[in-house]
């Protein structure tokens, strides 16, 4: 469980996160909101890249803000980035091994763990292929493999399906759904694709202008009147047409 209490982030004159309090109970939790709502800033606070002006984040009893940035990976925090950041010059294997090496996991299980993670995400490319030569979908999967290796406790996925066609999003969705059960990590999923969020997340939190608008079971949250107003700026119910247009954002 991750508890966020009164989190506030200020950049010169802008307050991307404004006194936000939210609980991520476990499993896969969605975090949605319009562009600029503060989702990625929240991930950056969790990663230690941004120091909040006030508030606290407690994950499984650990005060996250006390840990320095790179030590959070050793604690068990993983993340993917909006623009995928697998290392181009390294092979698929080395990309995943890199995370394992700095996760505090045992060196003796490294090769086995790395290959298992690559298999877990269903990556077909050979482990010794350079990431620079892979396509967008495969790179995404490499990033997810990096996020699940070495016994993570919390996995942050920042728009993992951005730019992927539907059938590849479907595969990614299956992989994400397996993470809590098979890897044992709490997943926070940020995405604009509502069908992906609905499929993966039991609970969802909605933020807008750095404030929590709603949170609870995903189906209920998505029907919430305030959410529709904040998220779409309209009163139209979130039908398939709504999803498609959002997915394009």
């Amino acid at each position, binding site marked *: 469980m991750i508890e966020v209490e009164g989190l506030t982030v200020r950049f010169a004159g802008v307050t991307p996160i404004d006194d936000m309090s939210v609980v991520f109970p476990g499993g896969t939790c969605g975090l949605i909101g319009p562009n600029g709502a503060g989702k990625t800033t929240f991930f950056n606070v969790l990663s230690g890249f941004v120091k909040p002006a006030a508030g606290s984040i407690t994950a499984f009893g650990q005060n996250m803000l006390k840990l320095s940035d790179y030590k959070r990976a050793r604690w068990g925090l993983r993340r993917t980035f909006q623009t995928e950041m697998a290392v181009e*010059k390294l092979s698929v294997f080395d990309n995943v091994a890199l995370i394992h090496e700095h996760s505090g996991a045992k060196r003796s299980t490294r090769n086995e763990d790395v290959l298992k993670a690559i298999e877990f995400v269903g990556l077909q490319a050979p482990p010794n292929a350079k990431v620079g030569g892979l396509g967008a979908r495969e790179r995404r999967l490499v990033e997810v493999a990096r996020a699940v290796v070495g016994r993570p406790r919390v996995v942050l996925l920042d728009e993992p399906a951005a730019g992927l066609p539907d059938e590849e999003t479907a595969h990614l969705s299956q992989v994400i759904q397996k993470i809590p059960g098979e890897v044992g990590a709490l997943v926070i999923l940020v995405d604009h694709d509502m069908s992906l969020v609905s499929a993966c997340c039991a609970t969802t939190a909605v933020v807008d202008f750095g404030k929590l608008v709603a949170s609870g079971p995903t189906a209920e949250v998505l029907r919430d009147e305030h959410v529709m107003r904040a998220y779409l700026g309209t009163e139209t119910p979130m039908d398939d047409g709504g999803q498609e247009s959002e997915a394009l954002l």
Partner: protein
Amino acid sequence: MSPRLHLDRALAVRALVIAALLLFVLAVVPDLVGADWITTFTSVAIYSLAALGFGLLYGRVGLISLGQIALLSIGCWIGTRLAYATAIPFPLLLLVVGGIVCLIGVIIGLPALRLSGLYLALITLMFAGATTVVLGATQFPNGGHGFLGYTTNSSLVGLKAVRRPEMATSDVAYYRYVVIVAAIMFLIALVHVAAKPGRAWASIRESEPAALAAGVNTVLYKLWAFGLSSFMTGVAGCLLAAQIGEPRAITFQTQDSLTLAATALIGGIFSLWGAIVAGLFNQLLPFVFQAQWGINPNFLLILFGAGLLQVLLTAPGGLVDQFPKDMANLGRLVWRGVRRLSPSKEEPAAAKETKEAKEAKEPT
């Protein structure tokens, strides 16, 4: 696990090729060329190490350091001073000098934690300039006493040259010694690049936030890179001191750091082979120009400039990356020419082409 096995085989082949090449350089080259060539090749090996240091920092971690020649000259100075002041065995001398220069390099690396790109390049270039000025003022030790070890007392000057290892006092033996030390340094670099530090460096080069999120202690690994690169350059400096015998401050100019960076980029900074090419460009070409052809080696600067432009625009991997590709293209071109000359093979291809051309035309 088949990919691992495949990797192991590729690795074994590569190791064999390198071992054969090393054997050739050690055993055959001294018999093929004259004495002046041997001293040049010794310098090539030494400057390859300085280029290797540059390549490790820029090619692997993405940090531009233009202070390599300054570190080389500092290594040369310390090596000279310690050689006069102590009687420690030569291998130990190399380690001590490498260790001290490593420390200095880490201190220079400290600003690199905050600076990168152009700013780091400027700071390190300033350091190179400062080193030239200070060494010009203090001179190289020449057998005198005190911290600087420099004397103007002509009866003491040049009494003895910086000593070489006992087993390698002749030029040819010392050439072999330097090549072996350089090979060990390259091996250390290779082990680093292929293991945990190499992966951490690659992730820092790609994106520092992503490296931090991956749990990489970026401060530690950046300083590690500076330390390793400086250690190697320091060892090279000490080797140079013993090669020259009586080093002079005039040997090291600030602009040499720029030339080294240019040749390292031309050679290729993403491959360790690039450092050897850089060493050849840096030391062999001037020798060939001056001693063999009688051309002022300063013209090389123009050549390096043009080469650098070519590399930056069209071949970021440098010569070691581009040359095999060019050779493969040339091979294909020659092969095509050969096929065109033999009529029996040429016909079906031409027939197919015309048929395709017809088909392409028909719809319109």
